[in-house]
């Protein structure tokens, strides 16, 4: 974010990942309503400028809207710690503290979700894997993550094929709950069967290609990096650490929690 360019896809994956984590940590440590709101607005603007703005904002809304609704109902209506009662009906009481608590928690989660979705929707996964293994993460970690992302759409396609094969043999899926549960069972078993069966073969092929070999790895893919990005990452980490340290000192000296 400090680089001044608005398209995050051109940045090193480590830079965007560090930025997302730092933003989440600093906002949480600050624990300030106005600061959270400003960061959230900034992230929204940044998201809107990305090539995949619609997906980022759509996914964020799908996660945040139900969450915000639940928060509002939970704390807006029932907040026994609340003192300033605004409205009261039966066991429920709308309190000022409850509403503010919902607002604070909602903003914090909003920043968290938006920052990380900005990262995941602008990262190219093979680059992330290459960068992480070059930084000493076990190559298997990158494999597990990247392979899951490849298999996910393939598994959806396979479910459709299994269903087609079953319809070709007389399966009629109705709209009722038992009918859909039955269809789920009928299709889940073959999906698992074929995925696990193939994994045995893949394991041996991976071993034959040196997947378990000890020793250093190299990477075909050169991920772009720059002095500015390296500096930005160091600054981001330093500010996150400083924010946490400040919060701890505050707590020890009796400042606000």
């Amino acid at each position, binding site marked *: 974010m400090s680089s001044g360019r608005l398209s995050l896809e051109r940045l090193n994956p480590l830079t965007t990942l560090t930025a997302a984590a730092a933003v989440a940590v600093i906002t949480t440590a600050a624990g300030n309503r106005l600061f959270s709101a400003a960061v959230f607005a900034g992230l929204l603007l940044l998201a809107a400028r990305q090539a995949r703005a619609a997906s980022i904002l759509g996914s964020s809304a799908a996660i945040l809207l139900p969450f915000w609704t639940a928060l509002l109902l939970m704390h807006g209506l029932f907040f026994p710690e609340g003192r300033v009662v605004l409205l009261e009906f039966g066991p429920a009481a709308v309190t000022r503290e409850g509403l503010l608590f919902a607002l604070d928690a909602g903003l914090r989660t909003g920043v968290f979700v938006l920052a990380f979705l900005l990262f995941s929707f602008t990262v190219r996964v093979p680059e992330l894997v290459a960068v992480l293994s070059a930084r000493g993460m076990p190559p298997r970690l990158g494999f597990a993550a*990247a392979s899951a992302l490849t298999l996910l759409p393939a598994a959806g396609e396979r479910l459709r094929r299994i269903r087609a094969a*079953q319809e*070709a043999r007389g399966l009629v899926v109705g709209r009722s709950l038992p009918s859909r549960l039955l269809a789920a069972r009928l299709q889940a078993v073959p999906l698992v069967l074929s995925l696990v069966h193939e994994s045995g073969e893949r394991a041996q092929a991976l071993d*034959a*290609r040196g997947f378990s070999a000890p020793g250093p*790895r*190299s990477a*075909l893919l*050169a991920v772009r990096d720059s002095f500015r990005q390296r500096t930005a990452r160091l600054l981001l980490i330093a500010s996150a650490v400083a924010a946490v340290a400040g919060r701890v000192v505050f707590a020890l000296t009796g400042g606000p929690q």
Partner: protein
Amino acid sequence: MNGTVLAAHVESFRFHDADAPALHDVTVSVPAGSLTAVLGGSGSGKSTLARLLAAWLPGHHGGTLRGRLDLGAAAFEFSGTGDDPRIDPGAWAAHVAYVPQDAAAVLSTIKDTVAGELAFGLENQGIPPEEMRLRISETARLTGIEGLLERDPATLSGGELRRVAIACAVIGRPAVLLADEPLGSLDPEGARAVEDLLRRLPGEGSSVVVFSSTADSLCRAASHWTVIGGGQPGGAAYDGGRQLAVGTPGELLAGNALARSGVVVPDIAVPEGVPAAAAARTAVVHTAAPLLELRDVCFSYGAGTVDVLRGVDLAVRPGEVVAVTGPNGSGKSTLLRQLNGLLRPSGGEVLLRGRPTEDTAAGLLAADVGLLFQDPRFQLFERTLEREVAFGLGDCRRFGRRTRDGTARERARAALAAVGLEGQAGGHPLELPASARRLLALATVIAREPAVLALDEPTVSLDRPGLDMLDRAIAAATKRGAAVVMVTHELRYAEARAHRVLRLDGGVLEAAD
């Protein structure tokens, strides 16, 4: 020919869960710079042999091996105990590379380009990027995949995938390449490209061993054949595959070892098969009303995409066998899916016994139209052969209780017997060899006795007994008045078996000349 690079003697090999060995008494030796073949029918243990040679099985979680492997000067004895040598598959593959039947299994699934996929093995060895790039372009040139390097591996066709898998194997410069059914389930164009590549490799320094159930032109080019075979797994006399004969192609084609092994010998099988097919062709009553009719059917996979079918007319009468040929991607499989309602025409209509089918669910049409899919992996989903065939038989609203349904069970057993798999009713579909798996898929179709059989590439991956079973199933179906629509790229087979051969090209169906 300067000496042997790889030699193996398999006294016996048994899978962990099996009572009988899968393979015994086989000796193989691979001369340097040679093209040799191991031939065997379905279930002969040739894939098991390939995996043993590739060190995918011994000393691992696969099973128990007694025997010996020699690679150059290195020799390994296996006695089937815990003290057996544990071979490092990565180090072994640097010398002996293996391309399995299912080429997709060798993909790492973590690379988004073919070039990245080729680099995977090199990256694991820590080879510097400049050298990697050099090796990639060199291997791509050798295997003819220069044009594919930037493609996403998930989008490759069968033939392209097989060549990429071979490229991934030879980029490590192995002394031996083991190719399991390298031409299996490929269209003619893809098969030709793979065959050219495999015939070229010995000259580049890698010996090639082809494992195949068909004595095709690739195997005919081999200098030496090993024929292995045994009884059907699950059959009474089954004791695993063993060596039946060794020799040059000329010697073995003259003898009778191939006939005993279940290997398909194309040039011999078809002339032999013609009289049988003539008998299978029932007389078609041309005045009978069509069983199934397509009227001006158009189809596209979504608005804005090219029409796959453009005004297809087709009428099939009882007892008739219609074959549809055509180049890759001409919409042959799409056409078959129109017949049973898995895909619905965007224009025109499909009529079954004169009635439009547009309002009938695919699951209900299944009673009348049985579809054999091209890839049986997506057609089989149950845990035993019997349950597989019984799926959907009987009352379609009570899937949960199907195996307790007596008549459904009877029909399932009869269908399994019709394809010669009755001895394995309790076995697992995914553990069947390729040919038997295809026959099982066929059994699931004929068990319902549908009025129309729609067969997508029915001959692919069948061995000779399998082809006989297919002929018999088609004959039995037409005899009871069913119609057969098959899609195949084997023109000779189509001409021998069908009453009419049609050609689908550019979405238009016309009589083949």
